[in-house]
């Protein structure tokens, strides 16, 4: 198929737009490919309690000054963080990514971001508090 352009400017616009799209997609995949390598940490992590591992991830996710209590709602923990991002789905997806990274020795995914309850965006979610999340992870975690 031959593409006909009415003017050189039109050709330039189409070429620049196409190139910028390709660059955007490449940049996105480059960012995706970056993963921290814990290596020898893995054995030590396996000895840690699932509860403490989840608490550590949640603390890091929300950059909380201290470990959140089990009864604390995840949405409240996130709202007091310094991140200016919506809780659902953006922050929930970030949490899933961090949990996946922490529990990458598990056969199953330990959680999905859609498990997280948001009163307006995802009222059917089952995970509201930190304790709910710990329980879900314990149920799904299958160390290899």
């Amino acid at each position, binding site marked *: 198929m031959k*593409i006909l*352009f*009415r003017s050189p400017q*039109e050709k330039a*616009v*189409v070429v620049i*737009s*196409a190139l*910028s*799209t390709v660059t*955007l*997609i490449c940049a*996105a*995949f480059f*960012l*995706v490919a970056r993963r921290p390598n814990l290596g020898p940490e893995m054995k030590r992590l396996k*000895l*840690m*309690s*699932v*509860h*403490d591992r989840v*608490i550590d991830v949640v603390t890091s996710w929300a950059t909380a000054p201290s*470990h959140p*209590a089990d009864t604390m*709602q995840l*949405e*409240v923990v996130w*709202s*007091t963080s310094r*991140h*200016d*991002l919506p*809780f*659902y*789905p*953006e922050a929930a*997806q*970030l949490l*899933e*990514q961090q949990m*996946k990274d922490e529990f990458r020795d598990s056969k199953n*995914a330990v959680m*999905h*971001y*859609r*498990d997280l309850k948001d*009163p*307006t*965006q*995802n*009222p*059917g*979610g*089952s995970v509201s508090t930190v304790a709910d999340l*710990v*329980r*879900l992870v*314990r*149920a799904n975690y299958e160390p290899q």
Partner: protein
Amino acid sequence: MKIMPQKHTLFFSLVLVVAVSPLLSAGDTPDCTPADYKIVTTSLVAVQCKEEVPGTTGTGHLTLSDNPIPIGTATIIPYPHARQWLIVSLLSSNGATELLLPGKKYRLPFTLSPSHRTPPTPATIDISVDSTILVSPLDSVGTQTRFEFVSHLGYRQGPGDFCTLQTENFDRRLRSLSARCKLDTPIPPTITAESLPRLAPSPESIGSLFVTLNNDKNTQEIPYAVPGLLDVFGNLVKIDTKGQIAPGKAPASKDAADYYLNFNHSAATGSKPAWTLYGKVAPSLGGLHAGFQFKPLATADVGQNQITGIKYADTIDFGASVSRIFEFNGLLQGLLVSPGVTYETDKEFDRHNLMATPDLKFYFAHLYNPQRRRSLQKFARELQIAQCTVQPPIPNCTPIPWTVENSKPALWGYVFDMHIGAELGGALKDTTVKASVGNATQLLPSYKIARFVPVVHSVIEFQRFSIDESLTGRYLGVTENTVFESKDHSLHLLKVQGWRAYSVLTGAYNLDPTGRFALTVSYKNGFSPPQFRRINVVQTGITFKY
């Protein structure tokens, strides 16, 4: 001059408060507030504190709950890699090997070292050696097939992966439901305080059995037993009838779908009444793949009849996109990358545009503060005071329960975000456009599409009112074709190029506290693809968001 001493006084007071507050805080924090316990053997118990107690040791003594005479001593060591847990080894005073007996209730006062308090204040935990099992659903209300059966007593042996859950009906008849069981931590008969952390790195998993029913239930039933499940005493576990497994309820929403429906009517002097429908369906399908979420999309902005000189957007889009959020620090807090593909047409399906639609959504620092977030921040501050965890501590503070529902919502909130995207593609083929009235037709030749699309979006909320403004600028890099229908319903071919802006200003009054139903007034002004006709309309209606 008189102010100086006051300044000094203030300064030294502040220094004193800052210096003393950690001591005050430490002095006010209990060493351990027992929250849970797990009976591992007749002489070994794991105790959970609300506080973190790593590196803490202690001693205590065991009594029967109704008799204060000690029947044994307790040695306490920290539970490695479980910050809130302690391991309590019990030794009988009379040399008996079995200290904790089924059906009995005990009391265990203990002190920890190092202590936050001077002198150390003993904590007390009541231990009941019974088989009370708490049954809690694990899944969302829509798919309630997974349950956790939690007991203070550890389980020695599980029923295996494929198991049966016996339930009891009102007539005391037992029914068997096939299920899958997951017992993470079976407790062997001989286990010591030293070997416990290795066998059970997660103390919460002691006395925990996950049961997944093979079929969803349609009635509420009382679980009776899981054949093959033995407690640490080797007895079959019978479930207390307080626990119930409830049937799955109708889902509150399908997956994490994003559904939006806005029906409006318009009217003006000398015109027929007109209606418009703006609908959006964008359910998230599957899980995250490399952080990206797949989302099919269908939107429609269509209507019937027109007010003189005004035409609705008349756009229908089908497509799909993947999106992933990237987190940053500093001025840019987040970037939502959403490349996608869209097929664009109109109500008459006489246009066929296919486009790639890469989109970047920028979240900047301090520009995401909706009412909900501000309310939760306010609640978090109130909770600290209610739970006596605020710094500096409140003297003689007694914690009181406080929930989000108790807290008054914030008065106002705001959101501001920005998108930069592109629409690249073309009209697939030449089409023939028919007039809405009469027999006039016009050939619409195919054309290429290269649009640069910046969007600015802002929301201001005040109590139940909100104002939402979305301003879309579209730069048409190449000339596009469109057909214009004049008042006498004759059709004309037009060429469109350059900037075309489209603004939607919506005022809403939420009818419910969650904001799912709202009365809306929208003012749309500008040019919307694929027709790029002038739109200038005020609409009122009801909005449903999910």
